[in-house]
Each structure stands twice: as C-alpha cells, then as structure tokens.
C-alpha cells in the first residue's frame, strides 16, 4: 500500500491556520475523504470536516485539493503521486469556521432572494403538460447538488469579497436559468438577473464549469443564455427598434 503525505489546513481563522502533515497508508480505491476520516479516527479526532453521502450526491464535502476545488468523496487517491505532498484546504470564498468547514450561509441567503416558481393552471384533467424536450434544459440545472464549488472558484467573489453584495454567484445563475426556462413558469426574473444577481459581473472565464462535479455546463447553458436574455431586454438594437415600432 502506498504511503501519502497529506497536508491539511487546520485552524479557526485563515490568518492563524496551520498546515499539518499526516502520513497515511492508502488502500486501493480510496478517496480523499477516506483518508480524512482515517486521520480523524486515529490522529486527530477533532478534525472538522463536513460530509454526508460519500457518493457525490449531496455536495457536502467540498474542499480545495492541491488548490483545485473538488468533492473529497469523488477524488480518488490514485490521481496523485505518492512522492508529492497533497494539500487539502477549505473553500476560500466562504468564511472559515474550522479546519475544512466553511460558512456557506451566503448561498442560503441568496436562495431566499429568488422568487419561487409560479405555474399557471394545470390542464383540465389536473395534470400539468410539459414535454421532455421542454424540461430537459431545466433538468440539467436541477442536477446541481449545491456543493458551491462553482461559486467558490469564481474570481468575482473569491478575489473580491465585496462583490458578494452585487453578485449571486454561478450556483444561482444555474437556478435562475432553470426558472427562466421553465415552460410553465409565469414570473419574470430578468431584471433580477441583470441587477441584483449581477450577471454582468461574470466575465465568462468558465472556471465554474470546470469545477462542477455534476458536469453542468454552467457557462454555456446557464450564464451565457441569461446574458443573452438580458441583451434581448436591454441591449439588442434591433429588438429595441422593434419594440419602439410596436409601441411597447
């Protein structure tokens, strides 16, 4: 069994955090979260880490492994070279609570700012009618497990925390795109997308897409289409002329 050196960032405030090295034997098929659990069970019972399903379905165990935002439960140890030290750090965009656990409350507060879905009346038989091709785009977005890695890696708030007041982050553009493309939803959220959510802050460098463990094409399928919908309402000269002519 190969032996790895794992450096875990430990502490309660970033400035005072320290790297602690653990030398661990790794068994076949193990993931980073297994290793963290073993450190917990043997060397550091108070090592704080958030996790639930250990199968890439709940999005709890987000961290930065060798600087890359990843789910610890889906990162196999055989990705790494035993000769190189592996770093495991908490997500940087959210305030640190302790060790690998961060305060992701920003995302829960943001979720409340998005008006809920509002459907019209169902068909006469009581069922809503939606066709598969109409729900497919939304289904891609609803794969989101809310690991918040996309918003963690997004430099708009990662490097400029003051933008959190004006920018919802990629996770919520995915949510807004889902609602806006819902075939039966009747709420208009484009002003929200443009203003409060701050889609203009995104400069589409696609790091969110690269980080997404669910392979949601966040930039191409959610953010750019939202930017285009904002262009429809605010920036397209031909549509503007069209609206003037139609007297709207």
């Amino acid at each position, binding site marked *: 069994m190969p032996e790895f050196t794992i450096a875990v*960032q430990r502490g309660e405030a970033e400035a005072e955090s320290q790297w602690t090295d653990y030398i661990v034997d790794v068994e076949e098929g193990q993931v980073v979260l297994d290793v963290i659990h073993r450190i917990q069970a043997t*060397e550091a019972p108070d090592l704080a880490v958030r996790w639930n399903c250990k199968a890439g379905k709940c999005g709890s165990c987000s961290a930065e492994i*060798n600087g890359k935002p990843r789910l610890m439960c889906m990162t196999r140890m055989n990705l790494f070279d035993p000769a190189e030290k592996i770093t495991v750090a908490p997500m940087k965009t959210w305030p640190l609570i302790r060790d690998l656990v961060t305060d992701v409350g920003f995302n829960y507060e943001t979720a409340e700012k998005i008006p809920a879905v509002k459907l019209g009346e169902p068909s006469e038989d009581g069922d809503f009618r939606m066709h598969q091709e109409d729900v497919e785009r939304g289904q891609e977005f609803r794969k989101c497990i809310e690991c918040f890695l996309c918003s963690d890696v997004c*430099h708009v708030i990662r490097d400029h925390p003051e933008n959190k007041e004006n920018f919802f982050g990629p996770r919520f553009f995915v949510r807004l795109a889902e609602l806006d493309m819902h*075939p039966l939803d009747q709420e208009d959220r484009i002003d929200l997308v443009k203003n409060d959510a701050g889609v203009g*802050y995104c*400069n589409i*460098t696609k790091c969110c897409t690269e*980080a997404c463990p669910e392979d949601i094409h966040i930039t191409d399928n959610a953010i750019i289409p939202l930017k285009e919908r904002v262009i429809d309402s605010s920036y397209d000269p031909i549509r503007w002329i069209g609206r003037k002519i139609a007297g709207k």
Partner: protein
Amino acid sequence: MVQALASLPGTARGFMQTLRTDRWWVEPALVFVSMSLFFGWLTVSILMDFGPLGHYEVEGTHFLSPVFEPTWLSAINADWSGAWYLSPAFIVLLGPVPFRATCYYYRRAYYRSFFFSPPGCAVGDVGETYKGEAKLPLIMQNAHRFFMYIALIFVPLLWIGAIRSLHVPGEGWGIGLGSAFLLLNAFLLMMYTFSCHSLRHFIGGGLNCFSCSKVTRTRKRLWDYVTTFNERHRLWAWSSLLVIVFVDIYIRLVANGYITDPNTWSKF
C-alpha cells in the same frame, strides 16, 4: 500509520497565488503567444499594401486574400496606397473584428491570458476592484449580438469570394490549391459564426417552450444543430483564425511571385 508533523505553505491569497500544483499556466501562455501572433499578423496585413508582400490579390484573377473581402470594395478602392485609413480591409472592422473581439470564447481566452482576470481557475486575479462586464467599458461586450447580425452577412460574402476565385477571367472555371484554401476558409468562418452563443440564443435558446407550435419545433431543431456546433466553438474559433492567417500569407506569397499555386489554369 498516521503521524502529525508541522509544515507550512501559505494560504495562497493575492495575485497569481495558488495552491495548484499542475501546470495551469501552460494553456493561457499558449493562448497569449498564439493570439499575439495571429492577431498581430492580421493587423499588419490590413495595413500592408507595400513591400515584398504588398500584393494581396493575384492580378487578373478573383484570387484575393479573405481579409480583404468583399471584393467589390477593394475594386472600388483599388488604389489606396498612402491613405491607410482607406484600406479596403477596414470593412472587417465593421463586422468580423468586433464579432471576434466580443465573442464569448475569445473573451474567456483573453481575459485569462492578457488581463489575468483571472490567470487560471483558483489562481489569484489582478487588481483591487473588479466590476467585470457590469460597467463601462466592458458592458460594451453586450454588443456581441449586434455584431453577430453583421457577421452573418459575411458568411455568404466569403463563400461568394471563394467561389469567384474558381473563375479566372479569360480562362474560365477551374480549381487550385489556393481556391481550396479559400473554400476551407469560408467553411470554417461559417462554422465559427454558426456556433456562436448569440446565434444559439437567437435561433431557439430564447424560447421557453420548444414543443408549443410548429415554428418553435423547427427552431428547436435548428437550436439542436447550433448547440452541437457550439460545443466546439473554441475549435471553430481557433481553426478559422489559423486558416485565415495562413490563407492570407499563402495568397500574398503567390501574388508577389514567391511560389506558384498548383492549379488547372495556365495564367498563374
């Protein structure tokens, strides 16, 4: 066996700071070099009607560098030497250049490679404050839609130019390597335009119900095509850029007599 030791790299905040251990800088560095070379050459080409590579059209033919399409403009303004601002190639500044400059793919590429905003994912970006495309000047990127409309006009123009090159006055129809390059160029430019994110939205992406009518079902089918192309937008962006630079150089080499184009005509 687990043992605790102490060690210390930093927490990696600040410009270019990261804990990434992979060679994340390779891609932006390659993009920087390639874009500098390609766009640098095109800038030179637009202005260059003198010197050893001054001719951009093979005399007596419709064999013309695509940078200078459409041909009717260069015909009107055939003798523009001395007045750089009258270069017939300046028409590309109305459509193709801003179309590329505001392209969602190129934006990603140059924001990373030229503006370090950010230089790589999870790598510290440049500058104290950041407003992105929410404020001037970058809010102008929203004009991409408008430039897309113009770029659509260039698709047939480039095809016409490429097909015209197959006809040499006095000799009739034929084919040559240079014409094949022009056809390839027109094809790639078309694919680049047809894979555009704005077009994808325009053609069907803006709909919320695809199944609602015959028209929306048709638009959904077109949207599916554009979506397939769009997944390779980066490929089309680079290949069309590479080929236009290559064709421009090739035609200048032929037009200035350095090489001979293998073809079915006798004239050149």
